[in-house]
């Protein structure tokens, strides 16, 4: 096996699913413009990917890519919204939190792919509302009252779900750090990131700031 997937195969898969996909994206992103952007990017990415790789399941790849791109957009929005006080804090956070959501080629992350998979599996060990609440809170920015509404449970139930989620992830992180010999504190930035941060700090120091 190693044949490249035909362009027409991809076009067909897209054509079949585009209706559903567009509706889902509109619902997820809140407007048609962004949804169409994502669809466009999704198509281009898959085309590019297909030039070098064989695609076993076009439908699955389309959905995965579209979902990743939608999440990228949501993440962009979240960052824009939570941009805080000082531009320095922003920049530093930008440097440290250099994240991609897992498209075919992604940059070095704060956590490895395996770490993230392990974390998601750990969340899946709990009742589904735990992961759902966690996503609604961290990704969608919903308040606990809104999550309670959406899931049909009480606010205190949502708090319990969140506590379970946070506890699970924290426990995992502590365990992962222990295995890597990292002291239990900030997740370790990569060496490149550390270099960039050091350079940035030096620049700031030069400019006479703290």
């Amino acid at each position, binding site marked *: 096996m190693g044949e490249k997937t035909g362009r027409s195969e991809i076009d067909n898969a897209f054509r079949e699913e585009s209706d559903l996909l567009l509706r889902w994206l509109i619902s997820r992103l809140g407007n048609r413009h962004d949804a169409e952007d994502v669809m466009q990017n999704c198509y281009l990415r898959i085309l590019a990917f297909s030039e070098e790789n064989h695609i076993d399941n076009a439908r699955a790849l389309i959905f995965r890519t579209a979902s990743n791109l939608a999440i990228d957009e949501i993440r962009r929005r979240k960052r824009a919204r939570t941009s805080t006080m000082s531009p320095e804090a922003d920049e530093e956070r930008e440097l440290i939190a250099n994240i991609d959501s897992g498209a075919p080629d992604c940059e070095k992350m704060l956590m490895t792919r395996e770490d993230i998979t392990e974390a998601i599996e750990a969340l899946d060990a709990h009742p589904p509302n735990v992961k759902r609440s966690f996503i609604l809170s961290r990704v969608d920015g919903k308040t606990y009252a809104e999550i309670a509404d959406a899931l049909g449970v009480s606010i205190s139930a949502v708090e319990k779900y969140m506590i379970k989620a*946070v506890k699970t992830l*924290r426990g995992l992180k502590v365990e992962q750090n222990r295995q890597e010999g990292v002291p239990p504190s900030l*997740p370790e930035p990569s060496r490149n990131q550390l270099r960039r941060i050091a350079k940035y700090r030096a620049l700031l120091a030069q400019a006479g700031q703290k």
Partner: protein
Amino acid sequence: MNDQETINEEALAWSVRAMSGEMTVAERETLRAWLNADPRHAAAFEEHEDLSGMFDEVAFAAAAEEGAKELMRLSDRKRADAHPRETRRAPSWRASGARASRIAIDRRQAVAAGAALFVAGAGFLLATRTPVEPLSLATAIGEQQEVALEDGSQVSLNTNSRLSVVYTRRERQVTLLAGEAMFDVEKNPERPFIVDASAVRIEVTGTRFNVRRATGGATVSVIEGSVRVTPAGSSAVTLSPGQSLFVSANGAAEPVASFDAGSALAWTEGKARFRETPLREAIADLNRYYQKPITLARGVPVEAPLTGEFDVADQTSVVRALSAAFSLTATEETDRIVLRPVG
């Protein structure tokens, strides 16, 4: 549980409370006091805050995964379901023509489909935006669109329509700014679904109805359930299935009428159906779907009754059918199509 463990538990609880996005002033004060009480409190809390980047990574990755899964589920369901739209309509009203009492959609199937969508999508069909940012939906001329709202309600938009949606804790607010939409509303007595269109307000807790805006006002047609309609200029009235109400732009309501479901809802199938409709009115209805409007020249019997069914997508065949029915010829100009009497 030793001291440090207790502190960690408290820090965890505070961290989660802080993540809620709705801490009260009193809670913030209590947190501040707790943080200041002991340097270990602050350290433990800080540690949790530092993890927030990692939480986000996991949350976003999980959300991306769930999104892909949900898309696959929806796609599979669509394939397994040979005629997804038909299952939500009872054969009864289509076969027998519309009578008020007989408009009984097979709600079980609609509910099953809607409920399944909602359960599968809980948390992932939710559009992402802060409560104040409305969801904007719009269709171009000739375009139709169906969208699922975050509570599982469905909106079908007809040609050249615009809609704005804001869901708050207490209500589900929709504004029909232009055009026509059909709503299939998820039942929720705790959160009424309200549609504002021109000078009329429509309120339901969960049911199915159609709203059409024109320059003169808006028409509400009820397919299922009961719908409370409040015209701007008169008292509220409750409509039952098969009933429709026209409210003019200045808020005056006409008497409640019955409507022909076959004609009124044909648009959701991409068709336009007329029964003894004056030609002029039918043309106005059809022109909503086209960039180039059809105009009637002098001598054309504008009040002549038109009965028939048209596939709106194909303007050429519509023009041809109209020409044949009324002995007209069609001339295409740069910005319109003119129908003239033959000879």
